[in-house]
């Protein structure tokens, strides 16, 4: 394994963009809880993986913190009741993924009492085994709160080399998104305590919290919180230069270690685990307060929002309620975006609920969306290559994709694209490059699924043919054996008959002889 000392020296990743921040507009007000809506819509699957098994039925009364689904493996993430109330229905509702699509949701009507029943917590987590800790985090529904909602348990244990260092990502560098900054300002102790727990669960003996260079205030608070505890592993705060997309996992690792995460590999292959700061704070809430992941901080911002700010939001709250709590919009809204302006997903409806991965809601006015610009042919200017943080050739990918040559796009490492949007941002021809990459990835993924299905059908068909042939052979064997036996039996009978005949003939001859003798 390669040697490096985390964050002692800061390296650069290729490409990237310096963007205007627009973060402070949502940080002027302190964090406030968002009002509870009339109905909470909780998608059974909070990430792109499989959903857990549903544990409730319409009509059930639940209390806050009660599990609503159960995870059957580390790849599934259970969800919990965000407040007390009644399950009204299991119904399809609009969700952010797939775009414009629907997914099965548990619809919960809060009873207004907000009763809460904590999960079982260990008396002293430092005495728990790592597996027991991970089991508790999994039961608490912990997943990557940075946006990807990757199941944390699957990140902490698996078939990979021992983990040496834990990186907590607090350097969300996309404009407008400030939920992590607000968390680090308001709950630094929770992050540090969570960092100790996650270090323990991974076996890491080095912890680095990466924040952006202009977060001086945050640095002070985190350092104060570090000094206040007697941590087992050293915890350090490192400030990284704000270049978009530095908050990307692979880019942050490259900045801190100078090493690239291997092509189809994981950070774990380098002995690293990278988690969001909010995930660390949530780990602490599970293990100390017995509070599963039932709420998160959401930035509601953008030029279309009258009073941009950060809310603590119960999961399942429809976006419309948050926009209303931010004093509504400034006028006509052209687009709602989940995430940031560079890599966010356009939303089809403001009825879409907040899930574990919803970090930011942006409202854009017609004048903010540059959609009206006509798409022109690629002029081979190379701007996109210069800014690509994944060292790809965006214009080549694009050319092969529009020619439906998906295989070549794959060979040009299409799947290394992190969909950061830098290339499309600088393209003078206004080509929606990222949409082409998303389409290409979708086509290739589907092909992979179809190929796997065909291979399975082929194997099963051949196994069945072999089985039938074997059975047929066995049957024929039996038949032939029977025929042989029958023939044998015939022959035996013939022989017996012949013997009798012979005996009779001899007897006749004897009696004849005797007669002759008598005569």
């Amino acid at each position: 394994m390669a040697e490096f000392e985390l964050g002692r020296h800061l390296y650069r990743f290729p490409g990237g963009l310096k963007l205007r921040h627009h973060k402070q507009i949502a940080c002027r007000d302190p964090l406030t809880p968002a009002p509870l809506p009339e109905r909470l819509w909780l998608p059974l699957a909070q990430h792109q993986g499989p959903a857990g098994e549903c544990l409730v039925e319409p009509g059930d009364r639940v209390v806050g913190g009660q599990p609503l689904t159960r995870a059957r493996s580390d790849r599934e993430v259970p969800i919990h009741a965000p407040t007390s109330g009644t399950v009204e229905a299991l119904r399809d509702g609009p969700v952010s993924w797939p775009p414009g699509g629907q997914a099965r949701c548990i619809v919960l009507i809060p009873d207004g009492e907000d009763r809460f029943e904590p999960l079982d917590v260990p008396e002293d987590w430092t005495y728990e085994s790592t597996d027991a800790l991970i089991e508790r985090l999994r039961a608490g529904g912990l997943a990557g709160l940075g946006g990807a909602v990757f199941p944390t348990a699957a990140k902490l244990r698996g078939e990979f080399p021992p983990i040496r260092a834990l990186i907590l990502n607090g350097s969300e560098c996309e404009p407008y998104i400030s939920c992590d900054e607000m968390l680090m300002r308001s709950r630094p102790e929770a992050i540090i305590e969570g960092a100790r727990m996650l270090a323990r669960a991974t076996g890491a003996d080095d912890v680095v919290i990466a924040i952006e260079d202009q977060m001086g205030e945050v640095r002070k608070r985190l350092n104060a919180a570090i000094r206040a505890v007697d941590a087992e592993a050293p915890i350090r705060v490192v400030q990284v230069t704000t270049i978009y997309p530095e908050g990307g996992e692979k880019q942050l690792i490259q900045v801190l270690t100078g090493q690239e995460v291997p092509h189809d590999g994981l950070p774990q292959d380098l002995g690293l685990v990278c988690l969001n700061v909010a995930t660390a704070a949530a780990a602490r809430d599970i293990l100390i307060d017995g509070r599963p992941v039932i709420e998160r901080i959401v930035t509601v911002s953008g030029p279309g929002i009258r009073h941009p700010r950060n809310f603590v939001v119960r999961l399942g709250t429809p976006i419309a309620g948050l926009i209303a709590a931010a004093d509504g919009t400034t006028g006509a809204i052209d687009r709602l975006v989940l995430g940031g302006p560079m890599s966010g997903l356009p939303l089809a409806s403001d009825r879409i609920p907040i899930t574990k991965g919803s970090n930011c809601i942006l409202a854009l006015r017609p004048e903010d969306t540059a959609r009206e610009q006509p798409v022109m042919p690629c002029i081979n200017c190379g701007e996109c290559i210069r800014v690509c943080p994944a060292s790809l050739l965006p214009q080549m990918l694009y050319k092969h994709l529009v020619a439906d040559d998906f295989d070549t796009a794959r060979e040009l490492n299409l799947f290394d694209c992190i969909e950061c949007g830098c290339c499309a941002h600088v393209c003078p021809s206004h080509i929606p490059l990222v949409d082409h990459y998303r389409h290409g990835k979708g086509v290739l993924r589907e092909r992979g699924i179809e190929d796997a299905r065909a291979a399975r059908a082929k194997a099963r068909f051949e196994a069945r043919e072999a089985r039938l042939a074997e059975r047929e052979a066995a049957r024929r064997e039996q038949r032939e054996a029977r025929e042989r036996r029958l023939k044998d039996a015939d022959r035996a009978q013939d022989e017996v008959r012949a013997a009798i005949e012979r005996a009779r003939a001899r007897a006749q001859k004897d009696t004849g002889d005797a007669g002759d003798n008598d005569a």
Partner: protein
Amino acid sequence: MSGVLTALVVLLALLLGIGLVLRIGAKRLAPDEDSVVERINAVLPQTQCAQCGYPGCRPYAEAIARGEADINQCPPGGETGVRELAELLGREPKPLDAERGETKPPQVALIDEDRCIGCTLCIQACPVDAIVGAARRMHTVIEADCTGCELCLPPCPVDCIDLVPRPAPFIWPEPDAPRRSIPIEVRHG
């Protein structure tokens, strides 16, 4: 005299040697029957529906390799499948043989478990063992294994099997590609 004899012997040896080399070479160069069938089979969709007139994809692949079957007999493969076969075999593509059936979007079988009488006839018909159930118990289709071949429909005595569309994964829509060439106005003068 002995010189002529030597020449004859050498000539004979040479002829024999060349013949041998040619024979071995011919054997080497002959197309490997198996691998041709394998490659044809790899292009076929593996639905195993027998619409091509053969009891499965591999038998059809073998028939094509023998030169006995045409390349346009597989409805699940559709026009794309015919094109791929044509490319593989270096032939001209042709339209799908419409009499064999139509190309349908992916589907899977679904058994109405309340009506199933557990006769096991569908199990015997399924080419990929995608149905489970014991005699006189209700039967179920394993969705991940079902190819949607429809072969289980005819034998069912109570008509309790339906084919439903297989949910397709979401694919991000392709943005309208820009015009790939700049239109040039032709001026007449």
